[in-house]
């Protein structure tokens, strides 16, 4: 289905699956936001946050966004549930599968296992940042060209893991690619396509094209 067709379908129905799900949720009670309290430790003030909601500011794809979350909310949940940034997927939620991979402070991390509150002050890059208008990022295009996805659930995390890998190692050998992508699982078994995509994106980079 073309992108245009997709868009017109959505316009016709006037409501996306996601906005429907959101609207149909029932809000239970009024959230309590208390910010923080200050305690004195050895004559110095230390801020204690939570356990109720507190206001935090995240720098996501270059834009500062403020949300109110409990300290137990993970970075992944804050983006998906509070900010509607849903590229990164929640799959295992146990720092194993890699579907939630984001680049935080220049490093690929499992965002299911980072607290939103501790991600403050660091640049957070998600898969949403890669596309320029309607144009795919060369790495995304390489995934398409090399059949690097099947069901697609692991893909956004894989793309970000590949991005972080290429940022650090722009001209990898096939062996380095294999080792460098060891933190992401694909149950459809698209590994060969993903590895080929990384090598294609690396070659394009060497050819002088912008890799982002």
């Amino acid at each position, binding site marked *: 289905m073309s992108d245009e067709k997709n868009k017109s379908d959505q316009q016709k129905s006037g409501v996306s699956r996601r906005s429907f799900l959101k609207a149909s949720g029932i809000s239970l009670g009024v959230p309590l936001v208390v910010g923080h309290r200050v305690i004195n430790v050895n004559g110095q003030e230390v801020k*204690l946050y*939570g*356990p109720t909601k507190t206001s935090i500011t995240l720098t996501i794809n270059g834009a500062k966004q403020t949300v109110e979350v409990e*300290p137990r909310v993970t970075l992944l949940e804050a983006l998906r549930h509070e900010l509607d940034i849903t590229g990164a997927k929640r799959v295992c939620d146990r*720092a194993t599968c890699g579907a939630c991979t984001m680049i935080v402070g220049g*490093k690929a991390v499992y965002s299911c*296992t980072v607290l939103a509150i*501790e991600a403050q002050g660091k640049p957070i890059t998600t898969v949403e940042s890669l596309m320029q208008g309607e144009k795919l990022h060369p790495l995304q295009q390489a995934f398409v060209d090399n059949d690097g996805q099947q069901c697609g659930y692991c893909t956004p995390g894989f793309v970000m893991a590949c991005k972080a890998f290429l940022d650090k190692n722009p001209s990898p050998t096939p062996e380095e690619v294999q080792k460098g992508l060891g*933190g992401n*699982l694909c149950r459809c078994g698209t590994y060969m396509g993903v590895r080929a995509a990384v090598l294609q994106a690396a070659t394009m980079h060497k050819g002088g094209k912008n890799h982002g």
Partner: protein
Amino acid sequence: MNAFEYASPTTKEQAVKLLGNSWTEAEVLAGGTDLLSLMKDHIVEPKRLVNIKSIKELGGIAGTAKSGLRIGALVTIQELLDHPRMRKEYAALVQAAEGISSPQIRNMGTIGGDLCQRPRCWYYRAGFGLLGTQESGEPLVPNGDNRYHAILGNSGAALFVNPSSLAPALIAMNARVKIYGAKGQREVALEKFFTAPTTGSQREYDLQPNELVTEIIVPPLARAKSATYEVRQKEALDWPLTTASVVLTMTGNTVKAARIVLGHVAPTPWRSTEAEAAIVGKAVSEATAEAAGKAAVEKAKALSKNGYKIQLAKVAVKRAILLAAKGGTR
């Protein structure tokens, strides 16, 4: 995950004041790679989380193989691997770190966290307590699925294996760990840091609830040869079945002194003085390395489903010795 209070102190003094007097009050958050999963599964339920990542003095690697190394507890696994001198001078540590095969885990996980992480025993992880028992107190591991459990040091109540990837290499290097707590600073040989608990409410290491691992001190190793050999089932994203780390001081091909430590075979990292005695004074060869491997598992006792690990441990010791003698590079 239960709700909790969160603080991010900037000094270790503040951090220990924020920690509790019992294990249920507070937990230390560093890389978080395991702690948050334990909290999601309600295995660990702290009322307060103390994030130590803003404490600058807990980071950084300083020193050389000649002077000895000081590694801050917050140094990540990837920072260890990226350190320019580490690969050449501390081969056993680098090879152990490489065994942690997920880049994301290496970016997040810290050396202090690797030493203090909780066992992977699936009975513990499924809520049957640290020692894996029924509510009646009946132990589940001896007659259960113990394929990944201990083959050495398994005569007590603890049958899990210590999960640290780095500890065997660091103990082989005779490393010490610096600990800061409510009563001030202390230093412990890493070999003595790990303990096999006898009750489910104890921890697997010598730390009080209000103490913090601050740094690891590795003595000078400039003239030693070292290696770690890891056996695991899958190439990526897997835990070791067995590891062996060796540090050899050699004259020509003859071993003058040896430290040999096995991982994932016992409730603590397992120093094998038997394997050390078998190789010291000998020239390294297939035959002497194999004899050391054999000596390492002489006292091993299989549980009902983990007999294969005795063979793996034997081979891991042999191959680690041969690898170290070659100069630590594969």
